[in-house]
């Protein structure tokens, strides 16, 4: 399952909730204000996920827009641009937009 998260974790519990049930076959994609959760010092629920089997992507154009640097992010985060976003959509089913 592909979870698309678009809200900051300090605003909304969508990220926490999806991480509670996400398993090794699941993919989480952070877009829009949710990219702040990729930051190592964000105190986001992702910071406790190192070593977990869940795959987490962040949308790099949304990071650039916000000045979120890859060097400051958790090391298990992977990065995609919009082309990669499309590939994630094509490769995963079902998809849940957690808005």
């Amino acid at each position, binding site marked *: 399952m592909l979870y*698309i998260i*678009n809200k900051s974790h300090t605003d909304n519990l969508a990220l926490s909730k999806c991480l509670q049930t996400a398993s090794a076959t699941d993919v989480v994609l952070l*877009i*829009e*204000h949710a990219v702040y959760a990729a930051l190592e010092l964000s105190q986001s629920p992702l910071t406790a996920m190192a070593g977990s089997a869940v795959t987490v992507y962040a949308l790099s*154009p*949304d990071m650039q827009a916000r000045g979120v640097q890859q060097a400051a992010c958790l090391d298990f985060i992977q990065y995609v*641009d*919009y*082309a990669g*976003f*499309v*590939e994630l*959509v*094509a490769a995963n*089913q079902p*998809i849940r*937009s957690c*808005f």
Partner: protein
Amino acid sequence: MKISIQINASPYQHQAADSAWHFIQAALVAGHQIYRVFFYHDGIYNALRDSRPPGDERDIVKRWSALQAEHGIDLVVCVSSAQRRGLLEQSVARKVGGYEAALADGFRIAGLGLLMEAIIDADRHICFGS
């Protein structure tokens, strides 16, 4: 792959319309087909023809119209969401003395059936919201 898109939020105040537009561009480049873009809830405000953002900013409404003109993508505004919020079908507008040309170029107003069709026929349906 046939991909269908749904927009649930107003333009400018939320990033949904921007995210969807960039996603669609990338999907087209990758050779996918955009089956339909369906505007629901406050998403219908994306279709207001009179939108005039400052000249140094992107024009979200015009960008949708161009997407239809250049790629023939079906842009459908939900009739019940639209009527509630102030965007009328031409025939209704004519009847009640409303704005017949309120809908920007390239959009059409139709019922929820077209959303169902998109969900049933497309391989993927992606929602963008607030």
